[in-house]
Structures are given as C-alpha cells and as structure tokens.
C-alpha cells in the first residue's frame, strides 16, 4: 500500500490517500501525490516539505528527505496517543514493535524476514480456508476453543490447518487459531522490548477486529487502535516534515530541500 498524508501548519490532516503499490513505485508515488494535492486543493509548489518513509522511501523522486517507517510510526502514534509507550504495527510485509518515550522512538524490533507473523500469513491462510480476510473476524467470533497452531512457517501452517480441518476441528476454531498464532508471535517479539502501557496497535492488520482481540488476549494489556490505523506512518512522516520546517523557520534557517527531479515535473504536467 502507498499512502500520502498532507498536514497543515497546525498538524491538521488536509489529505489522505491510500493506494495499492504495484511494481512501478516511482510512477505510483507521483500519481497518489497528485491525488492528495487535489484533495487538499493545493498546487505542488505550496507543499513546504516532503518526507518519504517505508520500504519505497528511496523511490519517491520528489521527497526532500527519507525517514524510516520506525521513526515515522512512533511520531504518528504519539500524535494520536500521547501516553503511548509501546506500539505494535503489523502490515502486509512485516511486523514491528516500537518503544516510545515522550513521543520519540527509543528502541525497536522488527520481523522483516518471514511472512509468518505478518498480514501475509492471514491472507495466505484465509485463502487456504476459502475465506476473504474481512470475513475472518465474524467466523472467529463463534469459536469456543481456538486451535493451537504449532508450526511457525506459513507454508507448514497451511498444511497443519488443512489436516486439522479434515480431523473435524470446526472452522471457527481454526480461524481463531490463525489469529492467535500471529498474535503470539508478534507479542513475543514485542516482549524483547519490554511491554509497558499504553499499548497502541496500528497497521493494516489492526483493522481486523479478530486480530485486535487476539493481541489483547496475548498481551494482557488493553490495546488502543487508531481510527485509521493504516496511515499512522504517513501521518508521522508529514508531522516530522512539518516540525523540520517550523524549526528551520523559527531559527531563521533556510529549509534544505532536494532539487525536484525532472521526471516528477513531467508526471505532474501530464
């Protein structure tokens, strides 16, 4: 997913665009930026600063600065939940745990090596069960005894759930087991940092009610989920950009901006 957030000088949201990322990162970055500018009703030259984040951060030709998703997430989460100390972000490709103090990233852990414990795990197993991802939560809600999935690997977990289904384990218990497997894995990862409240759960996977429940059950802490958990990283990037600009202005320093790439100009005029 590629997301664009534009904030104004007060930090208020002026545009929010979310789009599927294809293979052509650069072209997409330009297209979603254009859409966001339209939403905000702004020409590009009125945008004071652009921060790119996430895996694609180096593929945003018009960005002034790249900041990692870890720092941006911390900022975004803290802007919504000032008391946050621990944040969990589960996206389609990776899962990260953040330790935040006074609104700033203090430490982090990441699972970026393996699909198990990410949104991908849910997608693959939903496919195996013949369900859509957004149908899972309702199914899991009926579970009375969640299945304990013993393998970590996505591929082996697929084999395991198929064989447990054929043994007669009810579908809802299998689905609840899938949630529990990811929650256990990510919560264990989070424990490396030492979990302290408030805990906030973000990322695409946090939109899934079944997953939120599983994380709560495994953490033994209440878990806050932002209204729009998909854009906390982009939000944080925009807020960091705003801070950089305001800080430079307050000090009377020039705002160091990257030279715009020709490629971007062509896209914007087409």
């Amino acid at each position: 997913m590629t997301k664009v957030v534009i904030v104004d000088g007060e930090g208020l949201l002026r545009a929010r665009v979310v789009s599927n990322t294809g293979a052509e990162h650069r072209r997409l970055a330009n297209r979603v930026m254009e859409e966001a500018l339209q939403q905000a009703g702004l020409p590009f030259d009125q945008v004071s600063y652009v921060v790119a984040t996430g895996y694609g951060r180096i593929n945003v030709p018009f960005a002034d600065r790249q900041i990692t998703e870890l720092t941006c997430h911390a900022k975004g989460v803290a802007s919504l939940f000032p008391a946050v100390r621990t944040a969990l972000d589960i996206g389609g490709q990776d899962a990260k745990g953040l330790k935040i103090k006074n609104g700033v990233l203090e430490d982090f852990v990441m699972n970026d090596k393996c699909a198990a414990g990410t949104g991908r795990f849910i997608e693959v197993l939903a496919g195996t069960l013949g369900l859509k991802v957004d149908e899972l939560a309702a199914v899991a809600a009926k579970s009375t005894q969640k299945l304990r999935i013993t393998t970590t690997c996505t591929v082996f977990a697929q084999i395991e759930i198929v064989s447990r289904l054929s043994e007669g384990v009810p579908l809802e218990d299998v689905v609840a087991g899938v949630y529990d497997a990811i929650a256990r894995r990510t919560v264990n990862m989070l424990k490396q940092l030492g979990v302290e409240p408030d805990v906030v759960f973000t990322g695409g996977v946090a939109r899934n009610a079944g997953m939120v429940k599983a994380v709560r059950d495994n953490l033994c802490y209440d878990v806050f989920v932002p209204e729009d958990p998909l854009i906390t990283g982009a939000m944080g990037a925009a807020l960091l950009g705003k801070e950089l600009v305001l800080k430079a202005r307050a000090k009377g320093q020039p705002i160091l901006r990257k030279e715009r790439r020709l490629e971007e100009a062509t896209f914007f005029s087409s």
Partner: protein
Amino acid sequence: MTGNIRVAGEQKQGLARAGQIYHDRDIRMRQLKAEGRKVLGYLDIYPVLEMLTALDLVPFGILGDIKEPISRADACLPTIVCPFLRSALDLGLKGRYDFLDGLVAAHTCEVGEKWAHIWRIYIDLPYIHYIDTPHTTHQSAREHLAVLLSDFQGTLESFTGAKLTPERLRRAIRMHNEQRALVRGLYDLRKPDPPLIAGTEVVQVLVALISLPVEEGNELLRQVIDEVKQRHDGPKKKPARLLLWGSVVDSTDLIAMIEDLEANVVMDDTFVGSRAYFSDVKLTDDPLEGLAEHYLVDIRNPRTFRETALDEANRKDYWADLESRHGYLKDYAREWNVNGVILQTLRYCDIQGYEVPGLKDYLEHIGLPCTYLEWNYSQAALSPLRTRVQAFLEVIG
C-alpha cells in the same frame, strides 16, 4: 623475494593496489606459484601464520563471496549452518581456490571444525593440517596448544623438507608483529572526525593483506598509510561514528550500506578486521609458547571461553564479569570516539550470537547505544537491514 608488489604493466600502489587485490584476490598468488612458491590456504584467524611465513610458505586467507549464490556446497554441508562457511566451501568446490597447495584450519567454532574435515573429503590437496585449538584460557589449554603447534611444525617440516628453527620462527613473528603494528597505525587514521579512511577502504586493505605474503602486505600498509595521510578527499563528517562488532565481515557490502547513510564506521571488532591485529606475539624462549599464549589468550574472540570474573570480594558479579569480557570495547569506543555500536552476527553463528545478550547489557550499562542485526551473508539481506540501521541512526540522533 621481498617487497616487490609491482605487476608488469600495472603499477598500482596503495589504496588502488588494495582495491585491485580485493577484487582479484588470487592475482599475486598465481604469480608466486609461477615463481615456484607454495601457497597454503587458511581459514579465520587461528591458523598460526608465523609458522608458514617462517618456512617460506605463502598464507592465503580463504573467504566466501556474498555475491556468488551457494550451489555446490549444499550437497556436502547442511543449509542450516554458517553461510560464510558454506560459501567458502562452495568456492572451493567450484575451483576458485585451485591454486592452493594445502590447507590449514583450526577449531574456531564447531562448524568450522566440520568444515575443515568436509573440505578434506571433497577437495584433495597435497597438504592439510587441522589445529585442534582449545577453547579456554586455562594454563593446561595453553600448554596443550603449544604441543599442538609442535605437531603442526612436524607436518610443515615434512611437507617442505626444511627445518623450522627458532631463529626463523622469531624472524617471522617479528614480520607479523610489524604487520599488526602497521594495521594499528592504519586504524589510528580512523580516530579523527571525519575519519581519514572509510570503513569500506579499510576492509579492502585488510582483505588484500590476507591475499599477500606478509612482507608485501607490510609494504602495502606503509603505502596506504602515507597516501591516506596526504590526501584531501577522504570521508565526509557524519553525525554517527560507529563500531561494528561480530561475525566475519569479508566484503565491503555491509559497511557500504551503513556508510551510505549518515554514519562512518570508524572501528570494528571482527574478522577480517581488528581482531587479528590488536595484540602482538611475545618473543619467548620457546617461540611456540609465545604463539600459544597469543592465539589463545591475547586474541579477544567469543570463541575462546574466559572464566567468570569475580568481584573484589571474590563473589560472582554479572557486571564485573561483563567488564572483564567486554571492557576492551569500552576502550575502543573512547579512543575512536564512537557514539553507537552495531552488533552483527551471521545467521547460525552461535559463537558470536551467544555473546549478544550480555554484550547488549554491557553496552547499555556503559551508556553506549547499540543495535543487533542478524543476517544471511547475502546481498539481498542488506536492504531490510538498511531500514534497521537507518532507524538506529535516527534513534541515536
């Protein structure tokens, strides 16, 4: 023959020469072979190179290649072992090291031991010797290593037909000590801010060193040190000055990724880095004793177990123990003005991995921020690591 490292038609010197050998590691070896010298490959830092040099044998450090996909080695080594060793064996099986007359290996780690025996099975060489280097620093272990080295002396003498006299060995020890001192001199050039030499350049020089006879390596080091002191286009000043600790780093790729960000790698505690060079071999009456002491006690490496250090009241104390194990890193951090540490281990490298929890505690205790990367010895593994390193740099500011 000494000191002549010029190749007809290519008069490269200093850093350019180091870069050339880094990219083409066997060039000098093949020339020396053509001149009738014998080349022995060795793995890691425990084979006692002084003994080879003393008998006019050329030591050549066997490395892996992170750019070469591992294929042949998977038939002889499980895939769940150190990827560096798998890669090194793979290159051996593919003929990359076909100029070797022999192999010297030592017990660095469990898989390193198996690796040596598997190499012996699959790659037949006229001379193979394995040194079963002990794993503790006890007196009995030191004495045992001296005995093992005299066995090693025996097989070397019968392979070369020459006698390894104490005089020859002392001369070789002096040459290798000179190399150690020169490498420390090279590392001194990393102390200023910005460092005068980039971390990637240091790796190129150190890889070149283990691809050259010791006297030629010393000459190369002198050239590099002179060149670096005189040039004006060294690395730029960056906010982070990092120490890199851990498993083997035998290519520039990992450091290039780090130095591409807002950081200079100014110190390391790794192989092919500082570990082999930061203490000298003492010239004892029986030179083998000094060598045993050096390789077992002086070299700081998690592969050698040190007895738990006690506090002043003779009680076990976690922090006193950590201080005795890792205190030298605090000295490095101070002398090289380091403000962050990257702990890195290769996947399945238990030897270094076991050290990480205590080392993290220690660094935190002394107020030095660190981050831990476990990686796969492949270029593809580097891009997710980039995010972690960049985030770490953002955290330390």
